[in-house]
């Protein structure tokens, strides 16, 4: 059953009357009948964790907001830019009211003055559609002053980015929304604290998929949500499958389903039957790559189980590669991405991605030496943990883990060079 991708089950759910006829805004009504603190308790009890990648408990994040502050904000992170991720897009295209309802419930729970939906700039058409939804809700009294007669006031706005991966990082997103360069801020203060959020006010920043789960939790109860998934990873998750499978696409399954079930039952198995699958990036370009062994295939897709195989589930942008793919080329592709997307603020990331790219190109051209492979591993190790935001770590991961798991893919380029010499 879809909780999130309901556009697949219910025709025209992107129309407000259809959305409401199928339980839309029941969660919002339940929330408005509770105190804000009670709403936060329900979300805490549901076990919902952030779907943007970090997996932080959502209710706990909301509880960090100081209730006594007069002005607070909600910012929806719709800057979906991780390589291989395309889930938030489908939620917003096919089930937009559910995102807005979830955002409004969050806003009520922290008593926010307004919600800003920060869309990646390429989501131009989605922004137009959300603006129409917002106007329809305003006309019904669901957005604006005295929402549903509750006495609570809240506005919802969209904002388009303009092509910068870094703006998916929450403090860079806030800078961008304020009209500054989209570069990460020094923390503390954190966004939830006075001085650290939007316009220096306490702010919750949540991913689209995270908030789209909230109406279900408020309408069906925390227990119904907690009953889905595993002990530490509650609910459904949208898995974005791309690369060498027969049926790439989004699949909504309970957390804890195995990679094997996702890849073979749902995504149709290897694209070419005679080419076995070799490797998987389970969390886009930024998470550690793993070989597609039986052990990995039988691992449940949950926060806790993915840690046991040395990777993360993250945003569940699952990129599949078959035996024809050279992992040195993969390292190069992902490094070029991070080199392009590094905002330039922190030296290790700015310089590290630049030099990694140059040296990997040299290796791929057959002009590298075995020392070059050690050199890029060394550069990557020195980037990890030395930057203001996680992009530095993300950029180090593809190098460290491709070399660790697939040393022969690198060796073939440098030994050929040695033989030529």
């Amino acid at each position, binding site marked *: 059953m879809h909780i999130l991708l309901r556009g697949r089950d219910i025709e025209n759910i992107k129309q407000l009357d259809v959305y409401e006829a199928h339980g839309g805004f029941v969660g919002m009504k339940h929330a408005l009948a509770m105190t804000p603190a009670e709403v936060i308790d329900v979300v805490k009890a549901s076990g919902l964790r952030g779907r943007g990648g970090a997996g932080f408990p959502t209710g706990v994040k909301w509880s960090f907001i100081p209730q006594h502050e007069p002005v607070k904000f909600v910012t929806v992170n719709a800057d*979906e*830019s*991780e*390589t*291989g*991720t*395309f889930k*938030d*897009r489908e939620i917003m295209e096919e089930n937009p009211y559910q995102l807005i309802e979830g955002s409004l419930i969050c806003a009520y729970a922290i008593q926010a003055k307004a919600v800003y939906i920060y869309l*990646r*700039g*390429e*989501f*131009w*058409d989605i922004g137009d559609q959300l603006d129409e939804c917002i106007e329809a809700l305003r006309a019904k009294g669901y957005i604006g002053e005295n929402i549903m007669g509750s006495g609570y006031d809240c506005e919802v*706005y969209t*904002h*388009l*980015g*303009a*092509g*910068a*991966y870094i703006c998916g990082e929450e403090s860079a997103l806030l800078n*961008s*929304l*304020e*009209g*500054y*360069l*989209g570069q990460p801020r020094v923390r503390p203060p954190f966004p939830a604290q006075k001085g650290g959020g*939007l*316009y220096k006010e306490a702010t919750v920043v949540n991913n689209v998929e995270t908030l789209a789960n909230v109406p279900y939790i408020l309408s069906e109860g925390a227990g119904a949500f907690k009953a889905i998934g595993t002990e530490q990873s509650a609910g459904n998750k949208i898995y*974005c*499958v*791309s*690369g*060498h499978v027969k049926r*790439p*696409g*989004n699949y909504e399954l309970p957390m804890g389903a195995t990679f094997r079930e996702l890849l073979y039952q749902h995504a149709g198995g290897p694209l070419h039957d005679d080419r076995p699958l070799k490797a998987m*990036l389970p969390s886009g*370009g930024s998470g550690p790559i793993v070989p597609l062994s039986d052990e990995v295939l039988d691992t449940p897709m949950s926060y806790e189980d993915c840690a046991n195989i040395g990777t993360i589930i993250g945003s569940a*942008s699952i*990129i599949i*590669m078959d035996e024809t*793919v050279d992992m040195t080329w*993969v390292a190069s*592709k*992902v490094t070029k*991405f991070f080199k*392009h*997307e590094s*905002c330039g603020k922190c030296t290790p990331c700015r310089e590290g991605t630049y030099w990694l790219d140059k040296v990997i190109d040299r290796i791929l051209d057959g002009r590298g030496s075995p020392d070059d492979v050690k050199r890029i591993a060394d550069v990557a190790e020195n980037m990890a943990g030395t930057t203001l935001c996680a992009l530095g770590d993300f950029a180090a991961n593809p190098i460290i883990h491709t070399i660790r798991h697939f040393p022969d893919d690198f060796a073939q380029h440098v030994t050929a060079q040695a033989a030529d010499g």
Partner: protein
Amino acid sequence: MAIIGNPKYEARIDRHLAKYETKRSAVMPLLYIAQEEYGWVNPEGIREVAEILNLDPTQVKSIAGFYTMYSEKPKGKYWLQVCTDLPCALQGADEFHAWLKDELDVEEGGTTTDDMFTVEHVMCLAACDKAPMLQCNFHYVENLDQDKMRGLLAKWRQEAAQAANGRG
């Protein structure tokens, strides 16, 4: 024409200014309006956005330069941005991108001599299950192959010719 005092943009500019707590926050939407008016973010557009927001033009220019969707030079009528990131590349996007440049006889980032098409590669556009794909003037075109693309190029050329005739 200009964006300041232009009735085409007045309501949109006011709506953006009303959305935010500070004027400065409207710099990104206003840069899109400047780009729409002039076809690229030119010095005149930068100056006007700065004037509306009480900013220095240098501050506005730094924002325009940071983000890839603001173009700081003129583009063709159709700005084609092909995703060649890893998931698309696994589905043949690098070959598709190279073919498209050959087909239109342009270098990376270049514009055809008739100013119709600009071709460049971009990073992940969140359409990995529909590769190869591209973005044409900020609208997605997905599940592409050479035949489909030839058809689209012909269609866009025809549309541009009709628009030119209509104006004449």
